[in-house]
């Protein structure tokens, strides 16, 4: 870990100072506060999420009751200061919470993550005091959730090509366009919407807006019928002469792309955490089965073929987890964390798909049927390589950072 730290400091261009030794020991053993938080989220996930996750997935049901209970626990707004109704904890705590909850139910994990990172995150970072009061406090209790509308039918990775337009008319903004793949949107009470205010400025002409839901001029497309995370709603957001007050501009005009990218940097840690939870649940399932299933006269756990799989799964998971914790800790220490966050998201999402794939293999036929949760973990894992920055985009971000370190 020491050489990570030094590289990180050189890369960020700061004078070589040592990150507080506390940060290094945290990788080995979490502080008591974080252990307690992790335990309470794990208890909740085991008792309240895992038993219903299958049903929620089957019926595509938004876990409204659980979201309210999680709100009461402070988990819907981990980083938001207590003065605004949040838990006032750090990003490492948030990462642990999302991982533990996702281990119980991946859909609930993404609902928590989107509310925390993609909705509350940008308002907290870029909102005025007034905007924080109006758009943060009601969204900390679990009664209301928010969503983030950046992608469009015509552009996902190509975020700079936003074709949703916003023009100023008197004391209002008028928004027109369609946003796609919006998580939470059928259950949300507000959205952060990105629209072009100056087409000639290309990506520097995008601005971010706070839009209440429901609202005249805003309608929702049909709920997507997805492979996984089916308890969370995903749909298009359609804006047709949607009028909002001028005061709903988030940050400065033209700041939208920066807000989007910075928000996604943080969001990556949330999704990495969700992927870790899915992978852990899949590993739990496989290891437990290996002890119980007998073949060739003994539990299959005795067979090296199974042991090697479990070892590879455990290594993939643990290394992704350490990358995720490191990214969270860098962010908490207010150090540059883009590279770490991209590495975490890439590693964790690929770990989730790998581990859940192998888990089905360990379970054999039982892994293919809905009697066991392995098939759900497999379906849930797949999206983590796609949303909040595809694995390909993560590789570009990482390569960009690596090459900068070796700038000629």
């Amino acid at each position: 870990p020491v050489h990570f730290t030094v590289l990180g400091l050189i890369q960020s261009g700061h004078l070589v100072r040592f990150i507080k030794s506390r940060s290094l020991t945290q990788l080995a053993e979490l502080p008591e506060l974080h252990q307690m938080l992790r335990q309470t989220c794990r208890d909740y996930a085991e008792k309240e999420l895992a038993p219903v996750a299958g049903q929620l997935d089957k019926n595509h049901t938004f876990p409204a009751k659980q979201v309210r209970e999680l709100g009461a626990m402070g988990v819907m707004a981990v980083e938001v200061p207590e003065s605004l109704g949040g838990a006032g904890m750090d990003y490492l705590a948030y990462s642990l919470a999302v991982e533990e909850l996702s281990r119980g139910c991946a859909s609930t994990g993404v609902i928590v993550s989107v509310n925390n990172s993609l909705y509350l995150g940008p308002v907290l970072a870029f909102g005025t005091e007034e905007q924080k009061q109006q758009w943060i406090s009601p969204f900390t209790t679990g009664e209301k959730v928010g969503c983030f509308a950046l992608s469009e039918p015509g552009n996902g990775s190509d975020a700079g090509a936003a074709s949703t337009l916003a023009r100023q008319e008197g004391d209002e903004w008028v928004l027109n366009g369609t946003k796609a793949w919006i998580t939470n949107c059928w259950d949300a009470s507000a959205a952060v919407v990105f629209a072009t205010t100056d087409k000639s400025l290309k990506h520097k002409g995008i601005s971010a807006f706070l839009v209440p839901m429901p609202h005249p001029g805003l309608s929702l497309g049909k709920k997507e019928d997805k492979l996984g995370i089916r308890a969370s709603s995903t749909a298009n957001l359609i804006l047709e002469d949607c009028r909002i007050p001028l005061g709903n501009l988030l940050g400065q005009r033209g700041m939208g792309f920066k807000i989007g990218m910075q928000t996604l940097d943080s969001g990556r840690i949330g999704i990495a955490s969700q992927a870790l939870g899915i992978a852990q649940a899949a590993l739990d399932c496989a290891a437990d089965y290996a002890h119980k299933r007998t073949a060739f006269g003994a539990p299959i756990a005795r067979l090296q073929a199974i042991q090697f799989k479990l070892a590879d799964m455990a290594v993939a998971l643990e290394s992704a987890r350490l990358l995720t914790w490191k990214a969270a800790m860098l962010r908490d220490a207010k150090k540059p964390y883009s590279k770490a966050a991209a590495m975490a998201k890439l590693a964790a999402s690929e770990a989730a798909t790998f581990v859940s794939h192998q888990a089905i293999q360990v379970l054999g036929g039982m892994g293919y049927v809905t009697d066991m949760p392995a098939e759900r973990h497999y379906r849930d894992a797949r999206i983590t390589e796609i949303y909040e920055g595809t694995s390909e985009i993560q590789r570009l971000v990482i390569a960009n950072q690596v090459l900068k370190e070796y700038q000629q």
Partner: protein
Amino acid sequence: MAARVLVGVKRVIDYAVKIRVKPDNTGVVTDGVKHSMNPFCEIAVEEAVRLKEKKLVKEVVAVSCGPQQVQETIRTALAMGADRGIHVEVSGKDYDSLGPLQVSKILAALAKKEEASLIILGKQAIDDDCNQTGQMTAALLDWPQGTFASEVAVEGDKLKVIREVDGGLETIKINLPAVVTADLRLNTPRYATLPNIMKAKKKKITNVKPGDLGVDLTSRLEVLRVDEPPQRQAGVKVETVEDLVGKLKEAGRI
């Protein structure tokens, strides 16, 4: 009304863990094994915190006896809403032989020292299943007891306790100060919220030694041997009642 409630919380092996007997048969494996608060103690803490929220009680004090690790258990109680904690330091051989008699002596001494007027405990611990500490504590203090409580209501300076007994439910009224032990259906314990976990960090835990309370920890019991329950044997199927009677006679059962 009761100003101060003492709640006993015990650190036990987590209910979900598969218990393994030590190879030397002196006890069960505890090293590296997940521990948590005894589930009935959680229910006790929850009840105490609810009484405080209803303003029927002013202060909830969580108590645990054991080595350094029990502080985690006390902190969990603090995160659920207890106001402060007392860690009674017991370690090594003393901890291995710690049982209901010593603990009830400790609790009785603390109740007097802290001027508590209500003690709430779990009905039993899931490791030893003794179901004795509450009853012994009440006897040592000469206080009334409401054990196996599935409902507790304050009525002036008395407590109405509905007890789960073999025949059904028994309602009793007891004077305060009193000892209550919590049964399963008394309440559903809350999850520690993040803000309360943060607050718990600032709450005080005081350390006390059993000697300071005048308690002698010598055990009157000696564990001779610990064994796994016998493996379940396969049964035998018989065709007729005559065969059954014959087999029972063979086995010397009749």
